[in-house]
C-alpha cells in the first residue's frame, strides 16, 4: 500500500496525478475465510481493519451487498461525541473518542476529524437538571464536559436566538469541547484501504442471502455469488440486521426506521460548532464545504425504503428556524434517508447469538457513527478471542431478558 504524505502529493503532481494506486482491490471471493464480516459500513470495515492490524487475522472477507459505506455510514450527519450517561455506554463511546483522536494518523487517511465541540441545549428546568446530572456523570468517568448558562451559549454561538422572546428560550447547555464532526465517507474509505492493505478481501455487490449452519454452528454464508465458508461470522448490517437474524433463525429486539437528513446550499463560514436540541428537536452544524447539515428525528413507522415523509422534514426545519431565525431564507440542497436499527434502550447490541460462531454488532440506531472506531476495535477483539470484549459485554442480547438495560434515551434524545 502506497502511503499518503505531503511529499507524495508533490511527487504525484509532477505526473499530473495520473499514477495514484487504486485504494483497494476488487478480488474474486475465495471458497473459505477465517472470518467473514457481513456489511461494509464503517463498523464492519473498522472491524476488519482491527482484526488484521491488532490480531494478525488477515484471511478475512467483508461482504457488502451494495457499495462500501453506502448504508448509514455515508448518510449520517457526522456528529461525534462521548457524553453518554451510564458507565457502560460512556466507556464504549469514550473508547471510540480516543481512537478518533489519532485515527487519521493510524489509518494514514484524512478523516477530517474536527473537534469543534458539541452543545446539547436545555430549554426547561428538567432539561437543565438532566444536563447537570449527565455532565457530572461524564466528569466522574473522565469525559470532558461543562454546564453552560444561556449567556455562555450565546457567547459560543452569537447567531442563535438565546433571547427570552424565543418560543422555547435557551436556558443553558452541556458542552463537550472534544466532540465534533468527521468526514463520514473518508472513514469508510480509510478503513477499507487499511484493511485491504493488510490483505482483507472487500467483496462489493455481494449479498448474503442465508447462513450455512451445521449442528448449531455457523460454517459459512450463502450469497448471490455462491457459498463462502467461515467458522466465524460477524454481522454488522445496521437497518437490515433483523432480516439477517431471521435468516439464522432468531429474532432481535430491533425496529428499522427511516431517518432523514438534509443539507443546504453552501454558505460562508457562520457556525463553528455543533448545536443540538432534544426539546425543540433538531440539530445543525456546518460542513467544511459550507453547507448546513441538518437532522432531527426518525419517521415513527417501520421502513426499509431509505426515505421518509415530508412532515418530518418540515418539523426538522421548523426547529432549526426556531433556534436560528437567521437561517429562515437558506435554501435546502439535498435531502435523503437511511434505515436505522433502533433498540428499546437506545443502546447497541454487540453480542454472541444462539448460533455458535455467529456474532452481531447492530442496534446503533440513530447514533452509531461516533462509535465507529471503538465498535470495530472491541468487536474485532471479540471475534478474535471468541469472547466478548469487556467494553462490549454489557451490550449482549441477554439484557432484554435479564432486564439489565442501559437506558440512554436522554443522551440520545435527538436522533443523530
Amino acid at each position: 500500500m502506497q502511503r499518503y504524505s505531503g511529499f507524495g502529493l508533490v511527487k504525484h503532481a509532477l505526473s499530473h496525478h495520473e499514477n495514484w494506486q487504486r485504494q483497494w482491490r476488487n478480488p474474486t471471493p475465495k471458497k473459505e475465510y477465517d472470518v467473514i464480516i457481513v456489511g461494509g459500513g464503517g463498523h464492519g470495515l473498522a472491524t476488519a481493519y482491527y482484526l488484521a492490524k491488532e490480531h494478525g487475522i488477515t484471511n478475512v472477507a467483508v461482504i457488502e451487498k451494495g457499495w462500501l459505506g453506502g448504508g448509514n455510514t455515508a448518510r449520517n450527519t457526522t456528529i461525534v461525541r462521548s457524553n453518554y450517561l451510564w458507565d457502560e455506554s460512556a466507556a464504549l463511546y469514550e473508547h471510540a473518542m480516543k481512537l478518533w483522536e489519532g485515527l487519521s494518523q493510524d489509518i494514514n487517511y484524512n478523516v477530517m476529524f474536527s473537534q469543534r465541540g458539541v452543545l446539547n441545549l436545555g430549554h426547561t428546568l428538567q432539561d437543565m437538571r438532566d444536563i447537570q446530572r449527565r455532565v457530572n456523570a461524564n466528569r466522574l468517568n473522565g469525559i470532558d464536559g461543562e454546564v453552560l448558562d444561556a449567556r455562555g451559549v450565546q457567547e459560543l454561538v452569537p447567531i442563535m436566538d438565546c433571547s427570552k422572546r424565543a418560543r422555547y428560550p435557551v436556558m443553558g447547555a452541556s458542552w463537550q469541547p472534544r466532540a465534533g464532526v468527521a468526514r463520514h465517507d473518508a472513514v469508510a474509505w480509510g478503513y477499507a484501504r487499511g484493511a485491504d492493505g493488510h490483505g482483507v478481501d472487500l467483496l462489493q455487490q455481494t449479498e448474503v442471502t442465508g447462513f450455512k449452519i451445521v449442528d448449531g454452528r455457523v460454517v459459512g454464508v450463502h450469497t448471490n455469488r455462491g457459498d463462502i465458508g467461515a467458522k466465524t461470522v460477524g454481522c454488522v448490517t445496521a437497518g437490515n440486521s433483523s432480516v439477517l437474524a431471521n435468516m439464522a433463525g432468531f429474532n432481535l429486539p430491533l425496529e428499522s426506521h427511516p431517518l432523514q437528513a438534509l443539507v443546504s446550499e453552501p454558505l460562508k463560514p457562520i457556525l463553528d460548532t455543533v448545536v443540538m436540541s432534544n426539546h425543540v428537536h433538531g440539530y445543525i452544524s456546518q460542513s467544511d464545504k459550507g453547507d448546513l447539515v441538518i437532522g432531527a428525528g426518525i419517521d415513527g413507522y417501520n421502513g426499509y425504503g431509505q426515505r421518509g415523509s415530508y412532515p418530518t422534514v418540515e418539523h426538522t426545519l421548523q426547529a432549526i428556524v426556531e433556534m436560528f431565525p437567521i437561517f429562515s431564507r437558506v435554501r435546502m440542497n439535498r435531502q435523503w434517508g437511511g434505515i436505522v436499527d433502533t433498540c428499546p434502550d437506545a443502546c447497541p447490541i454487540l453480542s454472541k447469538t444462539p448460533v455458535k460462531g455467529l456474532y452481531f454488532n447492530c442496534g446503533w440506531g440513530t447514533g452509531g457513527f461516533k462509535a465507529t472506531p471503538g465498535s470495530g476495535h472491541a468487536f474485532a477483539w471479540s471475534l478474535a478471542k471468541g469472547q466478548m470484549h469487556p467494553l462490549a459485554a454489557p451490550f449482549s442480547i441477554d439484557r432484554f431478558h435479564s432486564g439489565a438495560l442501559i437506558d440512554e434515551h436522554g443522551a440520545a434524545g435527538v436522533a443523530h
Partner: protein
Amino acid sequence: MFNIYCPYCEEHREEEEFHPKGQAHIQRPTDPDACSDKAWGDYLFFRDNPRGIHHELWVHAVGCRKFFNITRHTVSYAILETYKMGEQPTITAESLASEEKQGDVQVADGGLQTVGASDNSVSESKGAKV
C-alpha cells in the same frame, strides 16, 4: 406523505393526523407473574421487524382518536388495507406468497419475514382497499 383511510371516520386523511404505534396484534400475557424472563422479555422488547408485509397499529391522534390497524409494505411503503381493532388482516405475507406461487412467480427467499414480499406482488395485490 401517506394518505390514510381511517376505518372509523371512513375517510382518507393526511399522515400528520396519525401516529404509528408499532406492531399490531401483540397480546399481553394473561398471567404476567407466571411468565418466564424469556417470555416477558419477548413480550416487552422483541418485535417482528419484517422487510415486507407489516401489520401495525396506528392512532388517529387529531381525528377520532381511535386506534386501528394497517397492513403496509415496509419497502414500498404501500398501504394495503386498514381495519378496525379486533379485526384480522385479509392480506398477509403468506396470502401474497400463495398468490405468487399460483402465478408461477418465484417466491423471494431469504428468511421468514421476506417470504412473498416482493414489491411486485404488492402492486398487483387485489385485496387492497386503499
